[in-house]
């Protein structure tokens, strides 16, 4: 199934991509997706993830056509 993965800010620069379009197996968690697409980068404790534009845990299971996002701690305001 298809999912979109987005990266922001310093993480986007480190990874060198703003977005991935992925074909993944069913029942994968967000942590699984990270390991699959970025095996060279260990999941950082500070890194945040969102599913369909809501904050979620890394253990959340992803559905077809979901939008997953990874980003560093926010620094707005």
């Amino acid at each position: 199934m298809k999912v979109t993965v987005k990266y922001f800010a310093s993480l986007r620069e480190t990874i060198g991509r703003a977005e991935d379009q992925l074909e993944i197996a069913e029942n994968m968690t967000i942590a699984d997706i990270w390991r699959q697409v970025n095996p060279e980068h260990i999941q950082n404790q500070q890194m945040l993830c969102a599913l369909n534009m809501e904050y979620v845990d890394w253990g959340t299971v992803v559905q077809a056509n979901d939008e997953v996002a990874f980003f560093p701690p926010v620094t707005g305001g």
Partner: protein
Amino acid sequence: MMKLHSSRQSRVANVANIKIINGEFDPFAILSQQSASLDMSKIGACNSFVGSMRDFNQGDSVLTMELEYYPGMTEKALEKLANHAIEKWNINDVLIVHRVGPIKPSDVIVLVAAWSAHRADAFSACRFLIDELKTKAPFWKKEQLKNSSRWVEKNT
């Protein structure tokens, strides 16, 4: 403008309470406009916070800044904040305006405000909005220093 309903639970922030702007904005003109749109005869208090860019951070001179956001999620996060404030305090209206894109020192970055019958609610809600915005809303600052650039890693 947010409509006032009889029950606090039914009030929700709408799109007019949340603005993300790529370019300069005048916070006091926006506050003035928003106040004029409200029934001020029921509102005794407005507390507002304007955050602007300093030319120094963490001991270094900062020349310019780039503010990145997550289109879609950022708006959603700000609406959630506004609704959270409306549920938590007895307030008549809230406002959140945040700038994105290139920014230079002295420019306004953020405006938050809360209107209420009494000042305690206005102060608490306004403080809540800016504190939560800084820890929850997906914005990221990249600072341009004299000879290098850096992502701000932690909000204070």
